[in-house]
């Protein structure tokens, strides 16, 4: 068994092949013959692993028989791809113009204070990652933020604690 197939998530196991790689195999098989499919494959791979660590990028490069540099070039160019693990809940405060004009900046500060992390950071319990996003096109409800797939509109800093509590309670 080659190194890159070893599991990278759970400490204390014997390093058996992570079944997630089987899912990646399926994705690669689906798109292998499609020209220019690298970005689509990386999208789905990131969905499987939650992020794109070096081992996974190597695995994709090998599977597609392309240089690792091509894969790394793409993962580092696009802001959608993350090379570091992210929290279970990703909070993205929209920083589009409409949201900015209506006070998205103070929202970010409020989250930074509540979570004690800076933008781009993940809480030590791996529960939340704080990000700022490009315009998500919900300008009519500015300022807007998303937590994974959930969208929240017309949010003031006073509602930050409540939103976080909602996700903490799900634990």
């Amino acid at each position, binding site marked *: 068994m080659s190194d890159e197939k070893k599991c990278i998530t759970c400490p204390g196991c014997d390093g058996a092949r992570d079944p997630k790689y089987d899912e990646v195999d399926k994705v690669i098989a689906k798109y292998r013959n499609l020209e220019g499919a690298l970005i689509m494959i990386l999208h789905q791979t990131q969905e499987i692993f939650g992020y794109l660590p070096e081992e996974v990028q190597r695995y994709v490069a090998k599977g597609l028989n392309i240089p690792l540099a091509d894969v790394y070039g*793409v993962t580092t160019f*696009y*802001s*959608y791809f993350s090379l570091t693990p992210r929290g279970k809940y990703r909070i993205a405060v929209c*920083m*589009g113009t409409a949201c*900015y004009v209506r006070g998205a900046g103070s929202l970010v500060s409020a989250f930074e204070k509540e979570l004690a992390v800076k933008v781009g950071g993940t809480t030590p319990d791996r529960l939340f990652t704080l990000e700022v996003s*490009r*315009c998500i096109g*919900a300008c009519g409800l500015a300022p807007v933020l998303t937590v994974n797939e959930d969208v929240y509109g017309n949010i003031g800093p006073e509602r930050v604690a409540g939103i976080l509590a909602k996700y903490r309670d799900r634990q």
Partner: protein
Amino acid sequence: MAYVRSHVLVCAGTGCTSSGCKAVEKAIEQEVSRLGLDSEVKIVETGCFGFCKIGPIVMIYPEGSFYCYVKPEDAAELVSEHLLKGRMVERLLYRDVQNPKPTAFFTDIGFYKKQKRVALANCGAIDAENIEEYIALDGYQALANALTQMTPAEVIHVIKQSGLRGRGGGGFSTGLKWEFAARSPGPIKYVVCNADEGDPGAFMDRSILEGDPHAIIEAMAIAGYAIGASQGYVYVRAEYPIAVNRLSIAIDQARQLGILGKGIFGTKFSFDLSIRLGAGAFVCGEETALIASIEGKRGMPKPRPPYPAVRGLWDKPTLINNVETFANIPQILRKGAEWFAAMGTEGSKGTKVFALAGNINNTGLVEVPMGITLREIIYDIGGGIPDKKAFKACQTGGPSGGCLPASLLDTPVDYDTLTAVGSMMGSGGLIVMDESACMVDVARFFLEFTQEESCGKCVPCREGTKRMLEILERITEGHGTPDDIDLLVELSATIKGASLCGLGNTAPNPVLATLRFFRAEFEAHVVDKKCPAGVCQALLSYSVIADKCKGCTLCKKVCPVDAISGTLKQVHIIDRAKCIKCGACVPKCPFKAIVR
């Protein structure tokens, strides 16, 4: 088909989905079946109505009643009153900001009165996930007619005659673009739809894909026929999951009916579509960068010429149009070039969709004839500025455009006029700012955006935007000098002239336009070290006007860092060393005694 006496249209665009329309729809559904009305009432999930601020929106036909801010707990009353007893529920009807009387019909609402919906015609009117609803409104008729009755040259002629120009921002003649692609020789060509809507504050493309995806499919197939392409790609932002989902459903449905695939409508023409997701890079809205991204590479632009019409995707001739441009095509072919050219101005025909946002009462998506003035959009449709604040500027063209002052409110909106006054049409973001916005800070905001999104391939853009941003940061932090303004102008000229693609060519625009109309504000920052709007924290210092202070202690109570001292009925004093400039004390003072 069963006879249905009422249609309940529930908006399911991104805006209303965020406001909770799914729960409302479910509650109405339950209530309708509880009262046994299932066979008489049809509930339809539609695309965006445009008036996102007052969502979730529910419209009931045939009356055309427009209900807003609908909550799940309103469902029982709505169904039993309106659908069972035939009485409108007044408390849920729309009320104007100025006029407290409820407006029953959506056509009477100020927000919709001056609008002319062409590209958005079906958005909010049909179930986007049902191809039959699109077909019932003459959908795919233009494609059928083009394939069976017209030559490709005739199709291109009609588009040229209509005067349609690219809605993505460039404003290039769509007909000419099609002609160039058609003239390029080669057996393999591509049609690409640019749905990488990157301008912050613009969301019309998303709404069209969510509300009327079949119009895009139809238009792309027509374009394929006109230029001789049999494969199309829709390049759409990964940030738009609802749009991607609806478009996938629409493509599958079109394939099932043989509208996409081999031998469409019994002709020899074949065409198919596939979706490609973006991955968060603003520069991919530029057509050569978009092509690189579809090819699975880093989205970096290439010098033009050769233009994509000559050598594009996988080096084959490629036609790239924006979503809103495509949305106009089926109607132009159905209703004729003259019909389209009758709307708008001499140089800009038809309508334009604007995303109205910022400090304005009615936020949402509006479609207006070209040539309408900014004032009409902002005041008649947008309902003016909230909280009795004064209008300061409106920003058009996103990071490539500029802020226009109140003196230009009567400017007619078309491609050439907006460019002439130093902004641009762009993709149609229209952000209104009131007196509380600092123009220097807004310029800094846009430079921060373009600097971060610069792909780094060419030096003028990569280094130039970085230097401009540093200067602007310096100014907003109070370390600017008068020379900085000249330096900004000089850098702008170089970046505009020497950058490789549209991103760099237009990146300095927000700075140049704000300098042109709000120079005094820049000067206040560098000379007086003041931020007149009170936004730039470093330039603020709070103090109490002794004559006005009555010593009520309200400000002292609200200060989070105990920077205010003073006892009852004595003039209070702010300790500037302790003050963190949070501004909490200002609105608390009943005597307006605290100034920045």
